[in-house]
């Protein structure tokens, strides 16, 4: 009878703590369950066993992010840049450094020129928008690759809304269009960029689409009024103001 309940709880929770309980009780109770297979019994025993699964459930979600430890190169960067490196973590074996905006360009120059580092290729440059983080709404994400060492590193520089980020296109020429795209999509300005203008959207397009407050649905704006002369679109206006937080 109690064996039946023991079988149901392990599904959502971890199996380790459950098994130790069952293994101890199994041998004396197995004879009882076979003899009296009656249904009203389970609800009575259920409350006593219930508290254990909810406890196990939150503990089951392991974080995939952890601090970097024992990497001499990362230690050297931490030593050189001190408090400017606010975070050095790894996710799924991928190393991420978070650096203050003031020393972001200096760190990039160091990673490019340093003899042991030699991150000679800028694989990608992008950003992400976090409206809830006041003072650090944007995050410029830079993915670097070192062809001699076959190694990757990810640099993140937090920015406030409206704050400009130093341009790395002087270090890696390939970052030129990536920074233009980031400017186009997020409105982040890059100081020292040789040619900062929109790249995918029209030059007079209002707004920056990858910001979280920008709606996904079609809307008329100054640009469409100016450039699209004849338009008869019948669309569902009920969906038009779905915010990011309400999407679940």
């Amino acid at each position, binding site marked *: 009878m109690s064996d039946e309940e023991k079988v149901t709880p392990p599904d959502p929770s971890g199996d380790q703590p459950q098994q130790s309980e069952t293994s101890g009780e199994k041998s004396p109770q197995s004879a009882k369950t076979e003899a009296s297979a009656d249904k009203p019994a389970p609800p009575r025993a259920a409350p006593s066993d219930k508290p254990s699964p909810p406890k196990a459930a939150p503990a089951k*979600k*392991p*974080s*995939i*992010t952890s601090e970097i430890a024992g990497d001499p190169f990362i230690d050297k960067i931490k030593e050189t840049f001190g408090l400017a490196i606010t975070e050095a973590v790894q*996710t*799924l074996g*991928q190393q*991420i450094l978070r650096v203050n905006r003031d020393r972001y360009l200096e760190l990039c120059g160091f990673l*490019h*020129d340093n003899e042991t580092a030699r991150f*000679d*290729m*800028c*694989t*990608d440059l*992008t950003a*992400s*928008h976090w409206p809830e983080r006041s003072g650090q709404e944007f995050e410029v*994400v830079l*993915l670097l690759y070192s*062809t001699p060492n*076959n190694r*990757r590193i*990810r640099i993140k520089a937090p920015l406030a809304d409206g704050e400009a980020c130093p341009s790395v*296109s*002087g*270090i*890696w*020429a*390939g*970052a*030129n*269009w*990536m920074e233009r*795209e980031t400017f186009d*999509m997020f409105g982040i300005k890059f100081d020292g960029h*040789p*040619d900062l*203008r929109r*790249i*995918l*959207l*029209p*030059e007079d397009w209002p707004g920056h*689409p*990858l910001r979280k407050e*920008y709606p*996904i649905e079609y809307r008329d704006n100054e640009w469409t009024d100016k450039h699209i002369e004849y338009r008869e679109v019948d669309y569902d206006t009920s969906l038009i103001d779905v915010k*990011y937080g309400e*999407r*679940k």
Partner: protein
Amino acid sequence: MNVAPNNQIPNSQGLVKGMHEQEVEIAPGTLFDAEEMVINMGPQHPSTHGVLRVILKLDGETVRDLDCDIGYLHRGVEKIAEHDTYAMITPYWDRLDYVAAVSNDLCYVGGVEKLLGVEVPRRAEYLRVILTELQRIASHLLWLGTHAIDIGAVTVLLYAFREREEILKIFEDFIGARLTAHAFRIGGLWWDAYPEFDKRVRDFLKILPGRIDEYETLLNANRIWLSRTVGIGILPADEAINLSLTGPVLRGSGVNYDLRKAQPYSAYPEFDFEIPLGENGDTYDRYLVRMAEIRQSIRIIEQALDGLPEGPVMAKVPKVIKPPVGEVYFSIEAPKGEIGVYLVSDGTTKPYRMRIRPPAFINLQSLRRLSIGHLVADVVALIGTIDIVLGEVDR
């Protein structure tokens, strides 16, 4: 440090406006004596492979400066992804580089699997390798045909499409689609291979090497082909790296960077193949690299067919995909270069941010560096040699 010279590109609108506003002065010698002329190429131009607009500043026939105007096909895939569940996003990836849809899928699906910690069955990994390598051959054949017709060799297009058609037929029977083939799902494949799949791929691989010899007979010793490609758009290795180039464009300059070897994914460590490299970094070397890559792909597919394991093709994946809070970057070697996905998960069923690392977009950036100093006609050859697909450039 070797940086591409002079990053300053004049405003594209300013250039065109300037052309209309300017009064044409008749110089003493000829009409355009010592004048720089701005002309517009595209967006509806057959050699731009889609809707690429190139604004050229010319001195006679020599290119002095160049600017690319892109974005005509912008659909906002990264924005759409923030409002779709993980499984719903995959078909959008087919439509990025629409001549190599299978490769794109592998990138996205692999990224989500890495974030979830799913282990894909070995049979699925092998089938994925077979399909992506077939796709690489198809993409390179399409590139060869269009590149050749752009610079005057019409015949090759007809032959290359004949072979590509065979691959598309294999795809159609496997996946149900020819172009936007959506074969991969998070956790494996939706369908197992059909009974004649092995035989049909082997039959195709049997005829292909002879056909590649045919193309090379048509082109390698062709004087027109050589004079249009040899020495055009030379790119040294350090500049190619600095410009973030990947794929055959980078390997044509002699840089040994192929993700299948450098950072292996899927079942690639189990196969024996080589990475072809160029020496001079010109258009002709990039052609040779791609032709050699087709031969290496044949080797990989043969090995994969020989060792194709039995078993399931789909891992156990929860119906509602909710990756843990965190982020991942995953990239593969697509026919055009390194295609990557940067996923940020906030623990919900939809990604908080999805960034596509587009190889053609980043490679197209080098067009300006390659073209300056060459003739207008060479710009056509150089657009071809970079191998762009505007669906992916504009996203």
